[in-house]
Every structure is written in structure tokens, then in C-alpha cells.
């Protein structure tokens, strides 16, 4: 059996706000295998965002261990975490976070700007175009975000998450700003992506319908995992319309 992408053991996160200590995570243990599509649900204040920040190497644990691809990242410096985010994690956000007045290609190139060793401009552009092609957006490569629909913008963001070939995609409420139909299309895109590349996806949502897309659903409440089960009825990818037809 291959090594888990994520291996957390008794992870705690405590924020100190003045004299108050906020226990955001109270001891989370979690292993995620390559190729899993994990959805994490929970009400606001449940600690799911904190968990995602730690999974995304944006924040550090207060206690416990966290291994990403078998490497302990619990105590890395700010700069080392930046390198790990760059190489191993692709982020997809609720608000897309595309740079305005910047073409889709250039938006997708952003993570490549911070790769070391440096990637030459020509190669950056090739990689970005390839990622856009995977998302069925080749014909939108020179469009600015304002010229794209919400679904297209989110797929540009997914292309950006993919461009550096990470082992993990972290999606934080990726459908939150989209209507139901477009949200479903984006979810389908993620399913297809997992199907074709075997990439590991962790998705955070508060919507049960969206959580149902995962192959494994984890619920979190008050900083603890309250349920963790395989999803026996994931939506079937073959019913989806082809990507190119998505507006």
C-alpha cells in the first residue's frame, strides 16, 4: 500500500486571543491515501477552516504531528512552508482569487513564478496553456477574468492549482459563489480530474449536496472529527456533459 498523502496524529491548534485560549482543533487524527476525494463538512466555527489551513501548510500545528507525503511539516519555517505550498498543494478558493486585468494564462502562471529553480517564461506559458486545455479553456487563454463566467473563472483557478503538478488539491467552498448548476459542473470537473489524473482532492464545504460528491466524507464539530465514512453513492461521472460544452 502506498504511503498516505496526509498523515495527522492528534493535531491541536490553539489560538491565544489576549487571555483567552481558543481551541480550534482539539486532537485530530487523519490519514488520507493518494487518489481519495475527501470532503470535510462542518458548521462555521467547527474548526474546518483551521484544519484546512493546516492541511494547506498556511498555518502550523500547536501540538501533534502532521506529515505531508511522509515529510513532517509541523515545524517548518515560513519560507519552507511556502516552498511546500508551491510544489505540493494546489488551492481552489470560494472567491476564485484571480488577478484582475490579467489574462487567464498569466493567472495560471502565478505559482510557476515562485518555483525554484526558476522556470523560463516560454516553459511557464506552455505549462499554463496545457493546464487550461485540461480545463477545456484553450479558447479563453487570453481573456481577463471579467470576460469569463463564474464557472469559467473557477476552472481557471483549478488550472492554476494544477499547473505545478501538486500531489494535493485543497478546495475551500469552491462552489460557494456559484449557482447550483454551475456548482455541479465545477464538481464534475473535479471528479473528472481525479478520474484522469488520480490526484488527491480535499474539499471543504458546508453543503451536504456538495459533500456527497466525495468518496469519503468527514464531519467535524467543535474541533474534533465526529464522523469519517466512505461514501457509497458518489455521483457517476459518465453522466456529465463534456467539458467543452460547459459555458
Amino acid at each position, binding site marked *: 500500500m502506498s504511503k498516505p498523502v496526509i498523515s495527522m496524529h492528534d493535531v491541536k491548534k490553539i489560538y491565544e486571543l489576549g487571555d483567552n485560549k481558543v481551541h480550534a482543533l482539539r486532537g485530530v487524527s487523519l490519514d488520507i491515501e493518494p487518489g481519495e476525494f475527501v470532503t470535510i463538512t462542518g458548521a462555521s466555527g467547527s474548526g474546518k477552516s483551521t484544519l484546512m*489551513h493546516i492541511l*494547506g501548510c*498556511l*498555518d502550523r500545528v500547536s501540538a501533534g504531528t502532521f506529515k505531508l507525503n511522509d515529510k513532517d511539516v509541523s515545524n517548518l519555517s*515560513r*519560507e519552507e512552508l*511556502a*516552498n511546500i*505550498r*508551491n*510544489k505540493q498543494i494546489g*488551492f481552489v*478558493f470560494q*472567491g476564485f*482569487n484571480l*488577478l484582475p*486585468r*490579467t489574462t487567464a494564462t498569466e493567472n495560471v502562471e*502565478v*505559482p510557476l*513564478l*515562485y*518555483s525554484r529553480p*526558476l522556470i523560463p*517564461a516560454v516553459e511557464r506559458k506552455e505549462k499554463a496553456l496545457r493546464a487550461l486545455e485540461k480545463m477545456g479553456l484553450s479558447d479563453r487563454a487570453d481573456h481577463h477574468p471579467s470576460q469569463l463566467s463564474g464557472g469559467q473563472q473557477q476552472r481557471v483557478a483549478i488550472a*492554476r492549482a494544477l499547473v*505545478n503538478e501538486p500531489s494535493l488539491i485543497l478546495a475551500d467552498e469552491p462552489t460557494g459563489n456559484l449557482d447550483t448548476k454551475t456548482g455541479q459542473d465545477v464538481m464534475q470537473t473535479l471528479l473528472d480530474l481525479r478520474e484522469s489524473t488520480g490526484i488527491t482532492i480535499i474539499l471543504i464545504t458546508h453543503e451536504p449536496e456538495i459533500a456527497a460528491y466525495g468518496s469519503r466524507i468527514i464531519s467535524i464539530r467543535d474541533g474534533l472529527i465526529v464522523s469519517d465514512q466512505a461514501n457509497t453513492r458518489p455521483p457517476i461521472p459518465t453522466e456529465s456533459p463534456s467539458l467543452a460544452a460547459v459555458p
Partner: protein
Amino acid sequence: MFTMMPINLKMALRSLNRNRMRTLLTMLGIIIGVAAVLTMVALGTGARASVEGEVTSAGTNIIFVRSGNYTRGGDSVGIVSGAGAATTLIPEDGEAIVSGIAGIQAISPSNSVRTFVASNGTRVFARIQGIAPEFADIYSWNIAPGNMFTASNSQQAIIGPDLVSQIFGEGVNPVGQTIEVRNVSYTIAGVTDGQAEDHSEALFVPWQTLQDSLGVEHLDSITVAAERAGESSRIAEEIKGLLRQRHGLISADNDNTQSGYLARQGGVGAVPDDFTVETQAAEALTKGLYTPAAAFALANLPKLDEVTLEEMADTLDRASNTMTALLASIAGASLIVGGIGIMNIMLVSITERTREIGLRMATGARSGDVAIQFLIEAITLSVIGGLIGLGLGLFSAELVGWSLGWPTSVSLASMGLAIGIAALVGLIFGSYPARRASLLDPIEALRTE
């Protein structure tokens, strides 16, 4: 870090282009500051170059010693006053000046006469001046075509360009031609470019040869060049003392004590000098050199013949220093205000783009990458302002120079300096915003609306 430059520059230009009006207004301080720096340097170096230029071309280090006394001569005291008529100066006086007074670069004994010269079948009336070969150095002549004669008793001559035109025609090379003056034949050795006085219309011949042909023993004048222009007055005083002694006008022991006010009136006490010593600084001042500045100097220096070049340069320096100080304070204030403007707008920009910074950090930008991005944006802003300021400065230097009649000179180095200062302002005032951006927490930054 430097390999990221093109990307960073592109990002900077895009971001600045996004808010053109804001960018331009932010640059205003830098634009004015750089323009002031450039104008300041242009006026400063222009003034200096002009003074230096005048020293060499006009020969402001020159002292004239003439036979006779214009101010106190006359029949009543038995001293001939008319130019050319006095015979009190002799070649030995010149030798004594050279050997007895320190700081003299060169002297040239001189006689002159107005008479007919004949050559090329033409006879014209002209001024003939006998000179020593050193005369060419004293006046910084360029002899072309031809060369200066080397002996004071040869039969060679140097001719002024206007006289060449009169005798040989415009643009003709007269070198090697023979020219006749008072039955002596001279070979033309060269043509002078001398602009001073009437050099262009005169014929210059070796002074000993001219003395012989005129049958005289005396000199009309001696032209003395000081090694350093500022010493002209001191040397002039010493020449007076020396000649009074040589001509038996005063005893050696009380010479120094007397060389005050009365001495400058052309003699000591009841005994008038039988010679005249003048520095050229006074003459130079009145000849339209550097006119407004000279007028300034004149207004401040009541005794014209006391003006040494050092004093004149000092006065000009003071005037240009005042101007420079004024512009420097404008430049300094504008650059500081401009820098604060840049800092302010960068802080605004960072606040507006907090999410962008968070996104960049989430995708792997290190603190340094973010800092460099914003630092380059600040420097780009200030350098573009600097370039606009450069254009404005060239224009204003020209304008100020023209309206004040003040010479300006803008060197490549001063343009480089102006841009360098602009870049430095961007660097200094961009550091704080850049550092703040680099220290943002990516989670907080991404959460910002």
C-alpha cells in the same frame, strides 16, 4: 532575485497603469524634485564652465605694462602721456620682471606701429605688432594653418584672418607668402585664430626685428601673464614697485609702505610714474563676458582695477551658490514630499491588493518575493517620475538659463544623477510598504474582502 526582474517590472507597470491618474499625481513630487535637481546642476556647472572658459579665452590673467602715464602724465610733469610716444620702457625692464617677480607664466615685449603692408600686389594699412613667441601662449592662440615663429629676431610673421581676407582673399592659405613692412620682408609662418582685441586684423612680427626696422630701443608695452589668474593684482603691484625702483622714481626702502591708494593713482606722492600697469580683469568685466553675473560683481566691487579673477569667481560662486541652495531646498523638499507620496500610495495599493498578496503567498511566494515585487513597483514609480522630471528639468534649465542670461550645461552624468536620486527615493520610501506587504499573514490576507 534578479532573474525575476522582467516579471516584476511587468507586474509593476501593469499595476501602475491601472490607476494612471493616481500614478501621475503620486509622481508629481518626484517630477518636480528631479527637475529641480537637474536645473540646479545645470546652472551650477554652467556657471563654473563659463568662468573657466572666460579665463582661458579672454586671458584674464594678463597684466599690461605700458610706457607713459595716461592719468598723471603731461607736459607739466615732464612725462609723455600719449600711447606710443613714451619711450620709458626698455627690454631690460621685461627681463627684470621675469627674474624678479614670482608667479609669472610668460611675458612678451611689444612695439606696435600702424603702417602699410604690401603683399600679393596689394597694399593695405594695418596695425603691426612686434611680439615674442610666448605671446601665442599668453592668448592661447591656435595657429592654423602654419606655426608660431620661434625667434624674436627672425623675419617671420603671424597674420590675423581678417587681414588675410583683405590681402589674399577669403579662405586663402597665406603661409609661405612674403609680406613687406617698412622695407623688411617677412615670410608668413601662420594664421592666428586670436579673437582678443584686434588680433584678427593685425600682423604680428618678432619684436626685435620690428625694433630694428623702426630704429628704436624702447618698448611700447610688455604683456605679462600670471601663472594663476587670481594673482594678477598682486603681480601688478610688484611690477609697479620694481619699475619705480628701476626708473629711479622712488627709493627701495619705502616702496612697500607707499604702495597703497596713491600708488594706484599712477604714482607715489608728487612723483608720477612714467609707466602704466593694468590688469585685464577690469577690461574683461566690461567686455560683455558673462554679463549679468559680471554686473553683479561690478555692483559689489567698487574699485574696478582691484578686481582679481579670484574675487570675480568668488562673487559668481556666491551668486550661483545662492541659486543652488535655493534649488537644492526645492529639490530636497519635493523629493521628500514625493517619497512620502510614494510610500502613501504603496500602502494604499498594498491594502487594495491584500488578497492578491495572500493568493501569491498561498501559491508559494516567499516573503522576499512579495517584498521585491512592491519595492520594484515603488522604484518603477519613482524612476518614471524621474524620467518625466528629467524632461521637465531640461526644459526648465533652458528656460531659467535663457531668462536670467545664465549659462547652463546638462551633462550625461547629471542626468544619471537625477535618475539615480529618483531611484533612491523609490528604494528608501518603498522599503517600509514592501516590508509590510511581505510580513502579511497569508490566511489573514486571503480572508480580506
